[in-house]
């Protein structure tokens, strides 16, 4: 019964978290955004006291249930492990191993050290929530979007406007490689030895393990009832049941209740921790409960080539060259990020903001110091004035929540004019598209020759009013390099 509740909650959790990374309409975030905000590392980075207290209490009361019903990577590993468990050989493939405490605490120490040194990027790689997010964003999201686009085509034929098409493109090479590595390593680890990752490498698992050692409720082996069949340790994916001592290592137990299910003598029960430790050994062969896990298969379908096939060149249309990313001295990070440092310090590179960005602006950085963390570029779109999607989804506080009104006065960078690219000079055509679309009116068209009023007009930028949204850069007709582009600012400023 308790196990069934665990399974149901776990399925709900992983479905909602996956949906968060897939949804591009903002609906999922409205209802399920909190799921990301109660993730441990994001809550810690966001200094989200409410979430942290909740997780602390939860663990002190019930043990590491976080790892079983909240952490998406934990649930993902459970699914892989469960699939292996469907076979006869796989079902009882585990055995007790002593805790690899030296590895766990070293990893925790290293994590803390990385924090202190400001190298959070590397923490992001092993953060379970971010790792899961990257896998979904990289491998599942394109499939989801293709399916959506297929439906959108169909809707178009039916003259319905309910579904619209979205672009699918590889946003970052490094992220793709790291997500692929994470997927392979974790799939192998969990296939072979269940929760090995959670009990050796994952810093969140280690921290929660320190708490769960003292939790109020725990699975307890009744030594009286235990018949010593030895089934439970062989079923324990955390390998934390010591059959010789009939004891459970609560620092590693993720409260999955699998042991209770297999215990023939009903010797294991989830209850208040006895004052004097008693444990029992029992065994029993029980089938896994019926669980529909249709989503699992989808996770393994990795797509390798996601090419944005966008060039439709019809008869009557001029060819449009793709824009190229200008060489920015300082990268641009989205409004709400406060500064490049704040983003680098708090972001776990979960890709939630990147999946949520509807304007194709955010993509993971390939810079080593900010690896996989979001940065803005404007070749495909610009940071729309009405959109605050990334700031509203960020669970870590790397991008702080902002309103539309606040956004209109946050300067993330400033526009720079490159005379040689401007079509006023290259083609002698009066344009002014940058000035026409500047949402803050920071651009005015002035004669290129100050002495000659009638000379062709070029943009003049009032850097104080420019907020760096990139409308000018995106809509500039000069290609492949725009005649006006945005330089990022280290620290964002309110104008």
């Amino acid at each position, binding site marked *: 019964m308790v196990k069934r509740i665990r399974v149901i909650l776990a399925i709900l959790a992983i479905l909602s978290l996956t949906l968060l990374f897939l949804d591009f309409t903002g609906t999922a975030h409205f209802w399920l955004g909190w799921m990301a905000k109660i993730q441990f590392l994001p809550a810690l980075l966001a200094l989200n006291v409410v979430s942290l207290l909740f997780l602390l209490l939860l663990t002190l009361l019930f043990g590491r249930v976080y790892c079983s019903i909240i952490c998406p990577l934990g649930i993902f590993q459970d699914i892989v492990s469960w699939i292996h468990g469907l076979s006869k050989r796989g079902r009882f493939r585990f055995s007790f191993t002593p805790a690899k405490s030296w590895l766990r605490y070293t990893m925790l120490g290293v994590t803390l050290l990385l924090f202190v040194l400001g190298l959070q990027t590397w923490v992001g790689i092993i953060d379970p929530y971010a790792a899961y997010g990257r896998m979904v964003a990289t491998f599942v999201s394109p499939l989801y979007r293709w399916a959506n686009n297929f439906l959108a085509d169909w809707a178009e034929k039916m003259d319905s406007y309910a579904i*619209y098409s979205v672009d699918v493109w590889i946003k970052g090479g490094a992220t793709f490689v790291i997500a692929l590595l994470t997927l392979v390593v974790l799939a192998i680890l969990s296939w072979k030895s269940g929760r090995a990752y959670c009990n050796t490498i994952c810093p969140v698992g280690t921290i929660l393990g320190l708490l769960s050692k003292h939790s109020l409720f725990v699975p307890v082996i009744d030594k009286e009832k235990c018949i010593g069949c030895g089934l439970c340790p062989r079923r324990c994916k955390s390998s934390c049941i010591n059959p010789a001592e009939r004891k459970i290592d609560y620092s590693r137990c993720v409260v999955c209740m699998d042991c209770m299910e297999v215990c023939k003598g009903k010797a294991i029960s989830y209850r208040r921790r006895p004052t004097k430790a008693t444990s029992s050994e029992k065994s029993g062969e029980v089938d896994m409960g019926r669980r529909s896990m249709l989503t699992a298969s989808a996770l393994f379908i990795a797509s390798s080539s996601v090419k944005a096939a966008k060039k439709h060149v019809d008869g009557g249309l*001029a*060819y449009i060259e793709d824009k190229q990313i200008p060489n920015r001295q300082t990268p641009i990070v989205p409004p709400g990020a406060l500064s490049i440092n704040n983003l680098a310090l708090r972001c776990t590179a979960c890709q939630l903001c990147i999946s949520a960005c509807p304007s194709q602006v955010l993509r993971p950085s390939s810079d080593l110091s900010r690896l996989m963390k979001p940065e803005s570029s404007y070749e495909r779109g610009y940071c729309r004035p*009405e959109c605050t999607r990334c700031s509203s989804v960020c669970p870590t506080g790397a991008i702080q929540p902002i309103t539309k009104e606040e956004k209109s006065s946050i300067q993330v960078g400033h526009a720079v004019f490159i005379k040689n690219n401007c079509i006023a000079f290259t083609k002698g*055509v009066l344009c*002014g598209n940058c000035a*026409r679309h500047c949402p803050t009116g920071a651009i005015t068209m002035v004669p290129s020759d100050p002495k000659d009023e009638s000379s062709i007009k070029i943009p003049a930028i009032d850097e104080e009013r420019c907020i760096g949204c990139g409308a000018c850069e995106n809509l500039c007709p000069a290609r492949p390099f725009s005649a006006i582009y945005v330089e990022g600012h280290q620290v964002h400023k309110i104008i």
Partner: protein
Amino acid sequence: MSEDNKSKNREGRRNFLKLLGGGTLLASTSLIGCRPNKEEHGGTHKNVVPAGGMTYRVSSSTGDKVSILGYGCMRLPTVKNGSARDTEDEIDQEQVNAQVDLALAQGINYFDTSPVYCKGRSEHAMGIALKRHPRNTYYIATKLSNFSSAYWPEAESKAMYYNSLKELQTDYIDYMLLHAIGQSGTAQDGTQLNGMEALQARYFDNGILDFLMKEREAGRIRNLGFSYHGDIKVFDYMLSMHDKYKWDFVQIQLNYVDWHYAKEVNPNNTNAEYLYAELEKRNIPAIIMEPLLGGRLAKLPNYLSTRLKQRDPEASVASWAFRYAGTFPNVLTVLSGMTYMEHLQDNLRTYSPLIPLTEEELSFLHDETARLMIEYPLVPCTRCQYCMPCEFGIDIPSIFSHYNKCVTEGYIAKNTQDENYRKARQVFLVGYDRSVPKLRQADHCIGCGQCTFACPQGIKIPEELHRIGDYVEKLKRESL
């Protein structure tokens, strides 16, 4: 057979061919001659001008018998087949003569010109064309077009009047108009004058109106009136002086859009329904200008023209507007600026004779059709693709056709409070991305204007694209 014989034979054949050719020519001439007869027997062959049958109206002021179709001389043809209103090209006097001849032959007897028409060349050309016909077979209307403050002094205005007589090669004017009263003006010192002030400055302060009254008494002006645009106060003021000045006629803008929706077309204008009623009340004959609303009623969007065609497949779209204006009994004549012979012929067909519209047809035009036109300002793009390819990759026709589709289907939101705002927003934005790739949408138009010259509909493409782009931007920002 000898060589001689051969050549004789050849010659014989040639003669025969000549004969045959001549015969064909004769036959076709006689056929043309026959057509009007056919018409009388109920045939309605197009492109044929019916002989006679022009409808006339009698002026309650002077008893003039005026053709319901008046010849507007503001768009005379040029040698380069354009309109002399728009270009500097020389007026094609031959063509003017030919059209005047045809017009007179078909019963048109009212010719409306002005010292400023065709960049100041209209009176001269009309003088030449009309001089070739007896002076008593037509009425000449011209105006005191003293718009520029340089002409406000008495001497200058008088000079303008005398020059009109000279250019038109006549010693009297049948219809003399104070030109476009109600419009604002700019005084010599640069101050802006409103409609009333401009009226005072142009005709009252300098004593010109009194002068024209005396000319009327002297018979050199047979009818005195004014044409009106703009400030309604001026119109009301002038009519309030009717007892003093005895206006013989007034020229107003009347068409089925202006009847109820003049304000929607131009906020300065007043509904023709009011203007006409005011004149009818005082039994002042109305002369109608802009029966086609600047040509807009000749080129209706497809869905509107189809509605007209369904009622009468043979009638031109413009003919509905002409019949509309002519249906009102107090209308003396309806002016049409005819550049091309085809315009003249089509109008002659409409008015020879005029078949007045029924009550139902009037309502169909000035209620239903006009409302649709006002509510849905379509871009008159026909997707001819002459503007394409746009150098900057904009898909101009697709943008317009998406916009027009949303307009005709009622998916254009006026503001966020609209009942169907959410739906309209979704349909417009989703449909926009479907019909036009993002890179080819209106916000990428830089306004270089190369397309404008190519557009046979005269659409100001960059302006329209920017307007649509702004609309999209507002939809996206939800700031409509």
